[in-house]
């Protein structure tokens, strides 16, 4: 037998030996993959459905009671904002806002439950505010002490004194205000960018004046005054309340006198004394002697 014949016999045997075929599952899987049998979808359906979903969510959001409640509710910052029109004594008292009362099941519960809840909420709110204010006070006191120390160094120069008075009073006012009134007002904090700029410009000018001879001091001080004015403008921009308060100093003084007179009329001497002492500590540069005299007179007139 030749090799070709042997090969043919063997190949015939091999062909008879095994005719295994792949399972039908594999056939289905592969043919489906080849024909890409995926359900047809309209291409324009996707953007339209997305837009419709967005519109629907927006409409639902507008209609939802939570959204309307959030819009109507005052923000918690309202407790912390300063109201110059009502004087200083009201600043320690947070403004009480009316909260929506939920309908109670029984008439007795309707009387007691909302009141207690409101009180609890207010107390919790007050505590949180107090803790925040105290922490801020500490920081502010430290920063303002540092400021005073620096301000004292340039108080010796006469030329600057008229400007420095403004800044010192401004800083002190700010300090006092931050201690009591503007406790949570971030715009007037010691780390305010306007105050930083003013402080830095003064210190730089004074350092230059100290280094150079006296004849040149005038020019430097003029430059420094220009810097000062610029700085004041900046401060006025960043902290307008301080200077608004300075401009309406007389109006404020009148308000304080009216308040004390009212207290004296109502024979609330102790309240008047306390209010005056508070004003004196808060604004030591102001002249409170007339009010003091009035208070003493009223006490003497007391039966």
């Amino acid at each position, binding site marked *: 037998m030749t090799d070709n014949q042997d090969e043919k016999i063997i190949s015939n045997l091999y062909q*008879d030996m095994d005719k295994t075929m792949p399972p039908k599952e594999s056939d289905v899987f592969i043919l489906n993959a080849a024909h890409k049998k995926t359900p047809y979808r309209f291409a324009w359906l996707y953007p339209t459905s997305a837009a419709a979903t967005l519109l629907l969510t927006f409409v639902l959001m507008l209609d939802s009671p939570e959204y309307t409640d959030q819009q109507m509710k005052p923000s918690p910052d309202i407790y912390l904002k300063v109201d110059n029109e009502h004087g200083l004594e009201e600043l320690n008292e947070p403004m009480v806002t009316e909260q929506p009362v939920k309908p109670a099941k029984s008439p007795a519960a309707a009387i007691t439950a909302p009141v207690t809840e409101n009180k609890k909420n207010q107390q919790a709110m007050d505590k949180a505010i107090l803790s925040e204010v105290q922490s801020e006070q500490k920081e502010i006191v430290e920063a303002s002490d540092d400021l005073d120390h620096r301000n004292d160094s340039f108080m010796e120069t006469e030329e600057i004194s008229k400007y420095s008075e403004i800044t010192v009073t401004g800083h002190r006012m700010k300090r006092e205000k931050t201690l009591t009134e503007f406790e949570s007002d971030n715009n007037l904090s010691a780390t305010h960018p306007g105050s930083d700029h003013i402080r830095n410009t003064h210190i730089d000018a004074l350092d230059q004046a100290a280094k150079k001879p006296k004849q040149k001091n005038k020019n430097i001080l003029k430059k420094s005054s220009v810097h000062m004015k610029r700085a004041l403008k900046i401060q006025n921009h960043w902290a307008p309340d301080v200077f608004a308060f300075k401009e309406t100093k007389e109006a404020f003084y009148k308000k304080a006198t009216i308040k004390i007179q009212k207290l004296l009329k109502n024979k609330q001497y102790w309240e008047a004394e306390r209010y005056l002492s508070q004003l004196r500590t808060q604004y030591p540069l102001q002249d409170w002697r007339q009010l003091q005299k009035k208070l003493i007179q009223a006490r003497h007139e007391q039966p």
Partner: protein
Amino acid sequence: MDFQLTDEQLMLNYAANDEQAFDVLYQRHKGPVYRYLLKSCNQSTIAQDLFQELWIKLINNKEKYCTEYAFTTWFYTMARNLLIDWYRKSGKQIKDHQPYINDEIPDNNLKEPESVFEKRAMLHQLQQALEVITFEQREVFILRQESNMPFNDIAKVMSCTTEAAKSRYRYAIEKIKNALGVQ
């Protein structure tokens, strides 16, 4: 669909999104490729996975096919690469391979009991002979028998020279012949 078209033409048609061309190709090659994989890895589940993976690879790379190579060369090269990857992933060595033995011997055309008995004995000897030959020799033998590929294409699939493929096949035939007792 014209079933007289060559594999290369069918593949080009399928690359041009002619899905019926794929059906013809699949019907032509599904059996030989499956048996090649089955006898090379000796596990029907693995062979099925590799078989599906191979056809999916063909579907995904249909545009990459070029007529520089014969379809069978390209196709069986992919199949062999998949096999080698499986061997590497499973940590097995080709030396550990045991040939696939099918106990169900078909006896379609054999009516006489004697001839059936003789045929079964011969096939059993053939299976034993396939165990004797090396993996490379067996691979050449299976590729030659299943796909009827020319030696130069087998050499391309196996990354060897044509002479090496021929000699491996010759050794395989000789060993099987000796095992079967053909003189």
